[in-house]
Structure formats: C-alpha cells, structure tokens
C-alpha cells in the first residue's frame, strides 16, 4: 500500500515536471546565473575566485532551493490534493517524504550533476571538488527536508514568499556553515570529515523528524 502510493506519487510528479519543464528549469537556471555572474564579476582573478568558490556554489544551491520551496506543497494545497492525501490510507508523513524526495531529485540533483562544471568555471582547485560534492550531496537533501517543514507551515497562507525565506534562513544557516566550512577546512589542509559527519547526522535526524513535523504542520494549516 505504502509502496504503491509512493510509486503513484513519483509517476505523477515526473509527468507534471515534464508537462511544465519550463518552470522546472527555473531554479537551476537561477543557480547557473548566480555562479556565472560571480565568475564574470571577479573575472581576472583566479586566486580570488578559487577562494570564494565553495561559498558561492553553496549559496547558489541554497538560494535555488529556496526559490523552488514555494512550489513544494502550494499547488497541491490549492487544488485540494492535500485533502485527499490526508484521507489516504497511508501516513501523510510518508507522502510528504516522497514528495520532498522527488522535489530534491528534480531541483537539486541536476544542479549537483552540473557542479563539477560550475566549479571549473570558478577555478575551484580540483583537490577540493570531492569534498564539495560530498558536502552538497549531504547538505542539499537536508535543506530540502528543512524547507519542507517551512513550506508546510506556510501552506495555508495565500502569499508567503518573504515569510518562507525568513523562516527558512535560520534553519539553513547551520547547514551552510558546515557545508561551506568543510570545503574551506579542506582548502587549508584540515580534516573536513568533522563537518561532513555533522551534516550526515543532521540529514539522518531530518529524514525521520522533518516529514512528521511537516505533516503535522499541513494538518494544522488546512484544518
């Protein structure tokens, strides 16, 4: 039952993504724009670029994720889909988890795949690329899960653009600090694993708790 519901939801989201592929590309294009503009603005100085590259890549990812956050539950709330999710024989938190995972797969994963190219554009030293990739692979799903809670909290409001950002930023800051910090540590020859393990621990906790919190928030928001 839970698997068939998850499969149906995945199929639905992939179809919807394909039908509205223009909209779906927006966050990725935004991140690309940030990185390219940064590279152009600091153009002539590879050393300066290399120094800020991890922070810029992390910020681009984070802001792109924030941009996509409002689409996570809003459409489903407006057309009544969330009501049917609440009445389904599978737990709402499970559907929230699947939806968030699909959201991450479709917004963050393409950017993650493009990161080596973007890193090259910013003259990131090759030796730091693996650490950056690991930190993003652990950090972006954590951002998506935290974002799901915030999106669920604001789903009952008609316009929530700035509120989502205000609520999400304090939650995002530690992820950003540890994520970009791990690469900075590697750049100075320090051990990045402490920060990466903390990100991993955060992801493990969020995987369990964030869907429960988001489901509770949706019930309250739509009640």
């Amino acid at each position: 039952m839970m698997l068939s519901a998850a499969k149906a939801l995945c199929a639905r989201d992939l179809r919807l993504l394909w039908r509205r592929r223009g909209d779906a590309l927006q966050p990725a294009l935004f991140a690309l724009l940030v990185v390219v503009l940064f590279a152009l603005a600091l153009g002539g100085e590879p050393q300066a670029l290399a120094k800020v590259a991890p922070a810029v890549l992390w910020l681009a990812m984070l802001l792109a994720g924030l941009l996509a956050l409002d689409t996570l539950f809003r459409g489903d709330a407006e057309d009544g889909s969330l009501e049917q999710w609440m009445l389904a024989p599978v737990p709402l938190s499970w559907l929230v988890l699947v939806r968030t995972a699909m959201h991450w797969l479709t917004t963050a994963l393409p950017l993650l795949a493009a990161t080596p190219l973007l890193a090259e554009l910013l003259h990131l030293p090759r030796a730091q690329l693996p650490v950056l990739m690991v930190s993003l692979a652990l950090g972006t799903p954590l951002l998506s899960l935290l974002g799901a809670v915030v999106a669920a909290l604001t789903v009952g409001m008609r316009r929530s653009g700035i509120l989502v950002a205000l609520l999400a930023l304090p939650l995002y800051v530690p992820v950003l600090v540890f994520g970009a910090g791990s690469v900075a540590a590697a750049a100075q020859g320090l051990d990045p694993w402490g920060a990466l393990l903390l990100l991993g621990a955060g992801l493990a906790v969020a995987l369990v708790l964030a869907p429960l919190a988001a489901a509770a928030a949706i019930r309250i928001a739509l009640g």
Partner: protein
Amino acid sequence: MPPTDTSHPPLLAARGLRFARNEQPVFGPLDFAVDAGEALLVQGANGAGKTTLLRVLAGLLRADEGHIDVDGQPASPALRARAIAYLGHLPALKADLTALENLHFLCGLHGRRRGQLPGNALGIVGLSGYEDTLARQLSAGQKKRLSLARLWLAPAPLWLLDEPYANLDLEGINLVNRMVQAHLRDGGAALLTTHGAYAAPPVRTRMLQLERPA
C-alpha cells in the same frame, strides 16, 4: 422507514457532535446515524455548517465535543481511511494531467474497488472519449464528473459528498442519483449535502436539517 437491521452497527454514528470556530458555534450538538444501504441528506442554508460537518466527519477538522463512530468503533485515522471517501469542493485534480492519469494517481493513493478500472469509470460518468484530455481543458461539470469517477473507484463504503450536484446538468444530477443508488445497493452509505434545490436520490433517506445557530 423500515426497521433497521440491528445486528450490524451503523456505518457512521455521531453523538453530541459540536463544532465551534473562534468561540462561534458552527453546528451542534448533533446526533445521527447512517446505516449501510442508507443515505443521509444534510440540508441547510448557505453558511449553516454543512461543509464543516462533512470535514469534521472526514477527519479534516477536529470536533470540539462529541463522538464519531465508524462501523461501530471510535473513528481513528486508519479506520477513516479505509471506510470514507470524501468529495469536497476542491476537485483534487492536477490540471496538467489527463483525465485517465488523474484517476490512476488517485487509485494508487486510495486503492481501487475490486473489478473496477479507471477506463470503465470514465465511461460510467459519461467521459468516455476524454481519457487523454488534460484536466485543465475540462469544463467545471466535466471535472465534477471526473471526481465522481474517482469516488466510484474508491474502495470505501461510506461516501461523504459535499454538494455533489453543483455544476452538473440534469443528466449529471441523474448520474449522481444512479451512482448513489448503486453504491447503496452494494451495502454502502452516503452523506450528501445540498441547499435543497435538487431532487434527492430515490433511496432510503434520512434527513438532517442544519440551522444557523442564533
């Protein structure tokens, strides 16, 4: 009204059900029961709390007081999910999916009644030929029919229908009545809200009149 079979508990029973929004009473206390094979027609003016009552029964809202029993047991989320299919004001259709894709998703979510297929359900509600039409291109009445097809496929015995006749033409109103009749014959039950302007289905019907609290 013929005597009800007492060996089975009613499919849905409410005792002392009361709901208030911001200290303002919306309805209640209400007592009623619906047996299998029966329809309950909830009537009342606009704003009398019909939709709120259905949302409370579906479990989307929490009642302030009172008990709801489903199939003789206190209503729990798992019990509700198995027993109740809810047709609300919002159609729960994705505009960018076709009629058939919408039904496939909703069947995956809620499960499917044995022996029923999404394609057949579209035929029953008069939407054959619209399988591959995007939901955004359907008219309001056709969307309602698509929601009715979803309801027809749901395995739940208890239907909660909020204004099922809205947006439908005469033939569509007949369709709702036929569907309710067939569902009740199979041992189901239905709650229908209406503001009173439409014909009720030709089945064993109880009435519940909601008044706006003074």
